[in-house]
Every structure is written in structure tokens, then in C-alpha cells.
């Protein structure tokens, strides 16, 4: 794939080093006069450019964890540090891809992608060039003038990717973004995500309940258990890329994860 990104400058930050630090995070919700612990003692770090999957069954608090990192929900205890600075509110340095469709239905695909750019000082011409470039990048070159309701679920998630990648976030947070897609679209989206990740060298925190998805994508898998949600195991996935779902190495990793999830 010849990259349309060559057309614009690439301000994504490369280089290694800790970018995201989660320290002793806890979350409790008040319930019937008592407290319901949702997350307990969550501690981990993300290296710059790392793709981390948070794998767990429904109700283990993995989405809550992501919301805390995004800044939508405050933690009860502990902190989230992005490049050493404490995270308190949502911001364009930590963009989220939601599971559900969160595009603005009154804006076209192109306008949705340009949404976050408005308010930044930039002339119209270079903005248009940039939007075009990101449209191309997610494979929606011909669909810029469509409305969200006129395109498929997979295409909507491509738009969602483009509209946040254009803001050059430090970390991309993804909350089961492909869970509602059919199997084929899901595989396509995983491929697309991997190619974008390699090309743009972004750091990604990817929440999923799908073992195979985690093994296909992740450098590192954080296996979460529930009641209360905590990280049970940190698993490095060193399989070479592109990964083959049929290979015995792949299957042995996913089998092991499946078993770990079961108990």
C-alpha cells in the first residue's frame, strides 16, 4: 500500500519510553448503602507504540477502566499518567473509539472527520487535504459525502478511526470497537487497524472479550478477572506478524487464554 500519509507531515511521535502509566487504580460504586468494588489495584504501563489488549469477560470492568483512562469517569483511588502528567478530563491526546456508533448523524463522513480540526488554526486548504488523506487512509475515498446513516457499520468504524487519528492522539483507546460487526468486516477492520498502527506508530489500548482478536492484535495482553475487576495476568505475545490464525503457535496461545478466561 503506497501511503497517502506521505502527502502530509507526520507529527505522530515515534521512539520508545513509557507513555501511559496506570497506578493502583481502584473504582467503587456506591450501592445500597455499601460499596461495590468494580476495579481493584490496576497497575500497568504502556510503552510508546505498544498495542495492548485488555481481555476479559463481560462485567469485569474493562470498559470502566478504559473510561477512566479516557477521563470520562474519575477513579476512586489511584491515578492515570500520560507522559508523566495526571489525566483528569477527556482530551484529544487520548481518543476513544466506542463500541456503538458515535458519529454525528447530521454531518457527512468528511465533516465528521474534520470535526475535531475546527477550532485549531489551520487554513481551509490544508485541512481539506488532510481530511482527504485520512479518508484515503481508512479506505473511504469515495464516501466522503455520504451521511453516517447511509453507510455500513464497518464503514462507520472506519470514519470513527479517521476522525480521531487526524487529531494525532498520543494514545488510542478502543472499547470493543468491532464487536457488533460481522465476522468478515471484523477481520478486515483488524487488518486495517494493524496497518494503521504500524504506519502511524500509535499506542493503542484495545478492550475486547474476543480471545482471537486479542491474539491477532496484541503485543501484550492484560487478562482481567472479575468481582472485583483486576489484572490476573500479563501475557506477552511474541508471535511474528502478520499472524496466522491457523498456525499452531497462534492456537496454543489462544487455547491457553481461553482456559484462563474460563476459571
Amino acid at each position, binding site marked *: 500500500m503506497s501511503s497517502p500519509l506521505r502527502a502530509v507531515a507526520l507529527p505522530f511521535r515515534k521512539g520508545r519510553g513509557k507513555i501511559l502509566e496506570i497506578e493502583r487504580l481502584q473504582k467503587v460504586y456506591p450501592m445500597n448503602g455499601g460499596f461495590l468494588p468494580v476495579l481493584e489495584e490496576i497497575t500497568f504501563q504502556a510503552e510508546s507504540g505498544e498495542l495492548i489488549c485488555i481481555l476479559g469477560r463481560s462485567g469485569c470492568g474493562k470498559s470502566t477502566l478504559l473510561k477512566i483512562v479516557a477521563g470520562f469517569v474519575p477513579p476512586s483511588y489511584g491515578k492515570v499518567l500520560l507522559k508523566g502528567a495526571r489525566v483528569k478530563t477527556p482530551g484529544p491526546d487520548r481518543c476513544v473509539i466506542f463500541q456503538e456508533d458515535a*458519529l454525528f448523524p*447530521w*454531518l457527512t463522513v468528511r465533516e465528521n472527520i474534520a470535526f475535531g480540526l475546527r477550532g485549531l488554526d489551520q487554513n481551509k486548504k490544508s485541512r481539506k487535504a488532510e481530511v482527504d488523506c485520512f479518508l484515503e487512509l481508512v479506505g473511504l475515498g469515495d464516501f466522503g459525502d455520504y451521511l453516517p446513516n447511509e453507510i455500513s457499520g464497518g464503514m462507520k468504524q472506519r470514519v470513527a478511526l479517521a476522525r480521531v487519528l487526524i487529531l494525532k492522539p498520543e494514545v488510542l483507546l478502543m472499547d470493543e470497537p468491532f464487536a457488533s460487526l460481522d465476522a468478515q468486516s471484523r477481520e478486515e477492520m483488524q487488518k486495517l487497524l494493524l496497518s494503521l498502527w504500524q504506519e502511524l506508530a500509535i499506542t493503542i489500548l484495545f478492550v475486547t472479550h474476543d480471545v482471537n482478536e486479542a491474539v491477532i492484535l496484541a503485543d501484550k495482553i492484560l487478562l482481567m478477572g472479575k468481582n472485583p475487576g483486576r489484572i490476573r495476568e500479563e501475557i506477552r505475545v511474541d508471535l511474528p506478524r502478520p499472524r496466522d490464525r491457523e498456525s499452531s503457535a497462534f492456537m496454543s496461545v489462544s487455547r491457553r487464554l481461553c482456559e484462563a478466561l474460563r476459571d
Partner: protein
Amino acid sequence: MRKDMKEQHPLSWRFLPGIIPGLFLVAWIMVSATELIPNYLLPHPLEIAEAGYAYVLGRPGERPYAGRFLSDAGASLFRVGCGFGVAVAVGLPLGILSGRLALVHRLMSTTVNALRAVPGITWLPLAMVWFGIGMKTTVFLVALAAFFPIYLNAAAGAKQVNPLWLQAGAMMGVRRVRGTFAILLPGAMSHLMAGLRLGLGISWAYLVLGELTGVPNGLGAVIMDARMLGRIDMIVVGIIVIAFIGRMSDQLLQVGMKLCFKSARRTA
């Protein structure tokens, strides 16, 4: 690039809205021709047409009511415009605030719902004492009546805006002011439109009520005047004119909103 999404309809589709009025007119002509209902209660459509023609296009002084249309319609439109304008200016921002902020909702809802339970016509005697007969009373009644649908729909619309849109805006670095105009209002647009249309519709109802109290000009005044002179034909002309202008103003509101706002064009 983008396909034209408009559905294609057969030609008969265009005439569909005319069928009910057409049938109604035929029935009316038959009833008049057979004198099933005496003429002094329901004049023949031709007489109505004649009176309507004189009212709209006739020269003043030619016959009673001739040529008064423009000044009556102008006066009525102005009163509706003022009353509706006040209702929008107060109802829309208050409604949005009450839809988003629990504090404002708690503060307002008891009062608004209590006032809403009072039929608008109940205010008429008080308004006449306060504002006298004419412009001010009419504008007051129109504004009061139009306020409730606008306020309530704006509140409902602001409340049901998809929270994901607001979260998405926040993560893209959108602050409160831009979030309000670029996300909240477009996101609530279908409700806002419904409220505005209901408000405008009810404005016409209360316009006539206000004008029935003895103002010299206006569409409601013509109807009341014609009643006292026993001119049934002019009453019917007045009704038709109000139906026509009311419908036009509703369409104008919709077209105007769609011209001004993408969200009205694409989602409402």
C-alpha cells in the same frame, strides 16, 4: 458521487393531498344545491369564492370587507411574529437548560407544569385588564401559549441527546460553548423542530382568540365582525385564509430551518 436518495413516486402521489379537500368541496356544493342546509347557515361555495376574491383582491370601499386582506393579514402576522418570537427567545434557551441541568429542571418543572394546566383562554380577562384590547393582549396570549410546546420539546430534546456524542465531542477537545452549538443543538434538532412547529400552530389559535376581543383589524377581528353582521360567507373566508396562512407559515418555518441548519436538513 452520492446517490440521489429521493424516492420516486407516480404522478398521482402529487394529487393525494388534494383528495380530501376536493371531496369535501363536492359534498358542500351538493348540500348547497339541494338546500339541505339553508343558505343563511352555509352559503354556496361560489358565494364564498366571490367574497374571498373581493376580500383579497377587491378595491377598498367597493363592498364591505373588500381589499382588507393585506392589512388584516399583515397585522395578524405581525402579532403572531412578535408573540412567537418571544416564546422562542424565552422557551428555547430555558428548555435546553432544563433538559441538561437537573437544577434548572427541578427549579422550573413544578411551576411550568402548573401554569400549563391552566387553559390559555383563562388568561384572557386578566390580559385585557393588564394590557387593554389589542396588540399587547394578543402578543401576550400568543407568547404564553407557544411557550409551553417550545419549552417542553426543547427540554426533551436536550435530555435525550445521545451521551456518546457529547463524550465524543469532549474527547475531541470541544469545550462547552462549541459543544452546545455544534453537538447539543443539532443533536436535539428533531425535537426543537417539533416544538417550534407546535408552537407556531398554537400561535395562530391564540392570535384569533386575542383578536376576537374587538381589535379593529386582523384576521380574527374580521371573523368576529362578520359574525355580528351575519356575514357567514366572510366567516368562512376568514377560516380559509387562516388555514392557508397557517399552513404556509408552518412550511416556511420548516424550509427556513432546513436552509439554515444542516441538522434540520439531514435529521429532522
